[in-house]
Every structure is written in C-alpha cells, then in structure tokens.
C-alpha cells in the first residue's frame, strides 16, 4: 500500500486549521440566556499561536470550549459552524467527538489543570488510562512513547513514576501539558495555564508550549489569558474578546503598537511591566466592570465604559470591519473612518 499517498489524501491543503462562523453559545439559566459567546467568527491558520485576551467574565473560556464542542448543559451551542482540519465539528455527535476529535485533533489544558491529575495514581498509570480511552496502543508502547516524549521536551523521565503530590506546581502543569499532547493533536488550547504560577515557573511552562510547536508535536495553539505581557512572548496573533464578542483581532505587533479598538488599548494601558515605556505612560486602568451577559448593553457592548462613546454606539452594534490584512475591528469610530 502506498502509505505516502494514503497519508496525503486526508490532508487539508488549505492554510486554515480552524474555522468558526457566527458561533453562538449561551448558558440557559432561570432568568433567560447568558450570552457568553455571541456571534463570534474566527479562523486560525496552521502553525499559528493565537492569544485570546480579555477580562474575566468576557466569555474566553466558554469560547474555547465551544470551539472544540466541549459543551454540556446549561451551556448550549445555539448557532454556528465550526470546522477543524476539514471536519465539521458542530454536526458531530459525542461518540465521534470522543473517538476522532478530542485528544487526537484538539486537546485542552483547562484552567484547573493543576488539579487535573489523580492524587492516587502515578503519572504513567494516568497516561495509560487516557490513551486507552482514545486508541488501543499496548501498555508497553505507551510507556516507551511517554518516556520518549518527556525526553524530547526536556522533562524529567522519573516524573512518570511519581505521584502528583511529589511534583512541584510547575512540574505538574508541564506534565499535564505533555500528557494532553501525547497523541500529537493539531490544535492545543491552553486556558490561563500560568496564572497560578510565579514568574520563573511561568517562563518554564511558556517555553514548553513554544517547544511543542517547534518540535511539530502540535500545529497551532490558542492561548487564553488576561495577561497581555505573557501573550507578547509567545503569540503570533491576538484576538481581544469583550462581553461575548471578539472586538479586535490582529498580529501581535499591530495589537501592541497600532490597536484601534478602545478596549484593546485600554487593556494594553493597564499592563504593568517594569519597562521605561510603561513607566512613561503611567498606570491607567479601565473604569467599571464587564457587563452582565444576561442583559448585555445595547449597541456596542463596550459603550458604558468607553471614553469615546457616541450616540450611535448606544443604538447600533458596530460591524466587524477589515482594516488591514488579517486585521479586523468592531468599533463605530473605525467604521466611520474616525480612527
């Protein structure tokens, strides 16, 4: 059998790995629907690390879980199309997702990953359980595969035979990341992977994530955080989310130096890093709080906090406008050519 030809048949030759079109995901609560993800479209190219930034309660975690169809009531996918590596995820049933998608095409390292390991199970036994759930590789093969992977990523191989409590917080986090990418998923989603760690440990975890792509273990990554300084270190592109919508999406440099949405530069101005540029501008924070998504504000959802809010912002939702190559903004100031 010509394995090369067989291998190529299934490959989607397009640049794009993930396509999401008009995705809506709402939580059903007694009072109605919490519109945590409301008409979000985005696409992610192969080989790209995309950062997803915004304050807590803006729907970032809900969005990334929806993108991989990791949803359960009270969260519902209301509308939209999600395609990953040529597969239409939004139409798949749970069995197919489990067998063909999760862990194989896409993996997530959730926010609580530090507690994701079983305290009574050695790391290697947990790995066996997880791999068995997706494929039928033999135990001995899993052991050698895990050892090879840990070596490749410069993680101590001894950790495989340890219990989680014997590992430090940073090591546990890195073990979880290594385990979730064991089957070489095309897309890795990491949700606030470093917010519980101190700076030195954080750097090690970020290095591991970058190495995963360098070693071609994963193709693309979505990194969720509220810390833009962290994104600056690893992301090629950044999407800014506010109140269930993506308000701006561009290359990391454009977001940092030329951002057009008032919320984006609000977030950037709030970053406190020890640098002369930051010292010069001083500490500026965004007034107010993100809105309650049960009753989001009319028009542009950012208008109650926006220093440039105009009449139209209260009435009409701003359209998503393309202002450059791969650079979209949803703001009336931009749509009317004032910025």
């Amino acid at each position, binding site marked *: 059998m010509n394995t090369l030809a067989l291998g190529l048949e299934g490959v989607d030759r397009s640049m794009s790995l993930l396509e999401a079109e008009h995705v809506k995901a709402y939580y059903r609560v007694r009072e109605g629907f919490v519109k945590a993800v409301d008409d979000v479209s985005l696409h992610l190219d192969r080989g790209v690390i995309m950062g997803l930034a915004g304050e807590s309660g803006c729907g970032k975690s809900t969005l990334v879980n929806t993108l991989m169809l990791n949803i359960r009531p009270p969260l519902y996918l209301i509308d939209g199309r999600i395609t990953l590596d040529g597969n239409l995820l939004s139409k798949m049933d749970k069995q197919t997702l489990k067998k063909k998608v999760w862990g194989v095409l896409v993996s997530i390292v959730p926010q609580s990953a530090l507690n994701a390991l079983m305290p009574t199970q050695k790391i290697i036994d947990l790995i066996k359980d997880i791999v068995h759930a997706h494929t039928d590789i033999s135990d001995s093969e899993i052991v050698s595969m895990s050892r090879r992977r840990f070596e490749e990523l410069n993680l101590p191989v001894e950790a495989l035979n340890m219990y989680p409590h014997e590992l430090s917080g940073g090591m546990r986090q890195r073990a979880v990341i290594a385990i979730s990418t064991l089957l070489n998923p095309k897309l890795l989603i990491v949700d606030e992977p470093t917010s519980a760690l*101190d*700076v*030195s*440990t954080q*750097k090690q975890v970020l290095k591991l994530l970058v190495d995963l792509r360098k070693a071609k273990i994963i193709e693309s990554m979505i990194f969720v955080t509220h810390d*833009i300084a962290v994104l600056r*270190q690893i992301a090629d592109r950044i999407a800014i989310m506010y109140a269930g919508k993506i308000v701006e999406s561009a290359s990391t440099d454009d977001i940092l130096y030329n951002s057009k949405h008032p919320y984006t530069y609000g977030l950037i101005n*709030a970053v406190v*890093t020890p*640098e002369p540029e930051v010292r010069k501008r001083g500490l500026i924070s965004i007034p107010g709080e993100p809105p309650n998504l049960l009753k989001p504000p009319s028009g542009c959802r950012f208008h109650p906090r926006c220093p440039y809010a105009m009449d139209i912002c209260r009435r009409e939702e701003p359209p998503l406008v393309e202002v450059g190559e791969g650079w979209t903004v949803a703001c009336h100031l931009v749509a009317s050519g004032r910025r």
Partner: protein
Amino acid sequence: MLLEVKNLTKIFTVGFLRRKEIVAVKDISFNVKESEFVSLVGESGSGKTTTARMILRLLRPTSGSVVFRDRDVWSLRTLNDLRWYWRQVHGIFQDPFASFNPLYKVDRVFYQVFTLLGDNDVDKESLVNEALKEVGLRPEEVLGRYPHELSGGQRQRLMIARCYLLKPKLILADEPISMIDASTRAGILQLFSKLRDEYKTSIIFITHDLGLAYYVSDRVLIMHKGSIVEEGSPEEIMEHPQHPYTKRLREDVPLLYRKWSGF
C-alpha cells in the same frame, strides 16, 4: 520608626513520627518608616506570607521580635492594648472573598469597623458612603449585596474602603491583586498609593510580581528561601540587581515591549 522587624525567625515542625523542621523565615530584619511604601517580593514558598502573619500577630514567631511604635507586639496582653494595635495595623489578603462572611451582606464589614473604633455618635452611613467613593465604588451598587454578588475587584475595593474608615498607620497587603484582572490591577494599586499620600499610611506590599513592586514602592526587599537577599530602591533593583536570585527574577518577568530570546 513605625515598625521594626528584628531577627525574625519561624520554624515549623511537621510530621508525627518522623519530625521534620522547616525554616520558613530565617533571621530577617527590616524597618518601615511613616508613610513609606515597602514591597516584599519573592516566589511562592519564600516566606513572604509567614512574615506578614507574624507582623499581623496571627502567627507567633519562633524567635525575634516585631516592634510597632516602640512596643513589642507579641507582648501586648490586654484587650485595650490589642485594640490599640488592631486599629493601627490592617491586613488585606489575596482572596477578598475569604474576608467576608458569605451569610451576611457586605455592609457588615463596615459596621464592624465602628465597633472596633468605639465610635457611636458618628453619621455612619455618610462615612461609609464617603469611603466607598474614595475607592471608586458607587454605594448603591455594593451596599445591601452579598459577597458572591460582587466581582473580585469590587470585593477588594470594599476591603480597601475599610482602610479609609480606620485610617490605619500600617497596611499589610498580601498579594492583594493577584486574583484580580490585569485591567483593574493598576486601579487597585493606586488606591494604596492614595492612602499613603493622604493619611501617611505606611504600606507593606507583598507580591511575586517585580513589575508591580517597581511602580509603587519606595523600597523593595527581595525574599528568597526565608531570607531577605537584597534590598534597595526600585531603580537599583531593576537596573543593577546584585543577587543572582534577583537577576533571575528580573529576567523572568514577561515584558510588553521586549521579547524573550529563544521564544
């Protein structure tokens, strides 16, 4: 001198059959002057919080002393003496949710302040409203609510609003903003600076984030494995760090306008 920490040490004994000693804080000494903003920076496990708890009289030191306005705080005995200390030294912690009783409305934290102050003839409501405005909260959006109905930022602002009622001489803020969104961190930090400027309150700010310490402090103490390894002005620490640990800490802080090499 407002506060003098002298040769403070804390050793924890753990284990039942095999007793093991852990030195959490190892012979540290430092002073805090009136209206001084001092940051204590270190990674988790460096002994920062243990130090704060000993200063707050929540944890008895193994040896050494904490002297506040010329009185050793661990030899205060009577309720009157303790009240004297509690009125002047205030702790603010990482998780503001833990500082509230979830069964009571948040208003209660303010009325406890009046009990502590022993003031009954004042217009409590207008004082509370004043304090809330100082920290950027609208009284109608927080009063009468339960802790779970407020965001982390709002809860932490409430805790700081208490300081505006108490006007303590010293605030120990232990990672007060690490659970708060990056977008509101700067705003909360400025509240501490404002208290310092308006009431000459001294602040000991405990953090793992050298970046935050750099902006607000008069002096930075770097703590590592229970010891203070370096001390200096924020500029000295950032521009000419001496101790290898400080150097590493500085390199590991992610910056906005500079990218790490090898990434």
